[in-house]
């Protein structure tokens, strides 16, 4: 079938691309547009490695069709750091060693940033609940949770 023309913004920059209806937004981000920070884990909405925000809402990009991006504002992990360097969450993930292999990390960063935007002072319970849709098979989560609480100024 013929390709569909899509206009959207990615990390604040206007983007245009052509896609097929069957392509997921994850596939287009990684393979056509070069945003390889967004990872493919399970590709069925269980692991959260492909987390992005779509008009400010945290979603799994493997469960979004690329054609649905028309007119939307997308933020990927490449949009987390500011012009002056790492986002506080990224800095705290480093300090707390909140990663080992790193495959889940972009999803955790995007999800954690969305959490702190919705709830700047989360409890540990709230952090753990919010991040339940992100799987990590290395760290066991404690370091990640502590990094997020520290970034929120909640770690004593």
């Amino acid at each position, binding site marked *: *079938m013929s390709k569909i023309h899509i206009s959207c913004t990615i990390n604040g920059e206007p983007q245009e691309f052509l896609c097929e209806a*069957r392509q*997921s937004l994850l596939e287009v981000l990684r393979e056509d547009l070069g945003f390889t920070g967004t990872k493919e884990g399970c590709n069925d909405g269980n692991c*959260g490695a492909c987390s992005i925000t779509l008009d400010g809402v945290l*979603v*799994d990009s493997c*469960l979004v069709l690329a054609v649905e991006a028309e007119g939307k504002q997308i933020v990927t992990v490449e949009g987390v750091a500011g012009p002056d360097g790492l986002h506080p969450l990224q800095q705290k993930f480093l300090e707390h060693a909140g990663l080992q292999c790193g495959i889940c990390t972009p999803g955790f960063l995007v999800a954690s940033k969305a959490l702190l935007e919705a709830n700047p002072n989360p409890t540990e319970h709230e952090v753990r*609940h919010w991040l*339940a*849709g992100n799987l990590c098979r290395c760290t066991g989560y404690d370091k990640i949770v502590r990094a997020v609480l520290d970034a929120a100024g909640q770690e004593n």
Partner: protein
Amino acid sequence: MKDFEYTAPATLRDAVKLLAEKGENARVLAGGTDLIVQMRGRRYQPERVVDIKKIPEVNELTFSPRKGLRIGAAVPCHIIYHNSDVIERYPGIVDAAMIIGGIQIQGRATLGGNLCNASPSADSIPALIAYGAIAEIQGPQGKRKIPVEEFCVSPGRNALQPGEMLVCIQIPQSKSNTGAHYLRFIPRNEMDIAVVGVGACVELAGRGKAQTFKRVRIALAAVGPTPIFASAAGASLEGQSVSEESILAAAEAAKSVAKPISDMRGPAEYRTHLVGVLTKRALIGAVKRARGEHVPNAVQEHESAHPVYTLS
């Protein structure tokens, strides 16, 4: 995933036309959290996908004292459980919407989709049945309405005919002295599929020791080929005094209509036992809410890890 024609009509009329033209070869896309997985897994390989999210009626989420709550078929869970009318008047819906998948899924998944997907274990369906919700359907022949308990016909199959789509879920007005609660059992804290789920909605009459059940609806998840409306269990309470004894008898009645299978989530005998435990808890939670007491849902932080489901 096999390629398909993507359409995004702006009106119900166009959507129904696009669906009717393709019959079984068209699928509706709302949040996509079931459909995209099913297309990737080749359970469905539609020729045409009809994205309904540009249609105003399916994005409606409104409450009015006369009409009750209208939840458009494309309204995602996170909008529903942040809505102040839903939080205040329909806490049983919040109980369910907050535990469907994780935050990423709740950003896209809709209650309309949860209903249309017709999974026996769908979390929102027992809550909707307990509230007496009605499914509003649009098709080539116009509109029709059916009670949610008649919407699912077998695992993954619903009552929609080719060309028809769900427009909205209507929940009757919330009367005073009414409370509802949905809870499920899973072996994890979140991100899991119900081993058993139970929703209950009660309307009480009178006060204190003379308080009685006026109207009770109970529905069960994951113990049959479809969500089950345990109508006799609810009706058995009507006119009875509000007590542990009457609630336990209703829980036994709910167990008698459960027809679970044994699978990786649990053996049938265990599930039947859980129906009794969860029906009791759902009824007690609903009674407490009807009395204006706070009953935490599964994701709220509570002082005790296991809240005590006893009548005070």
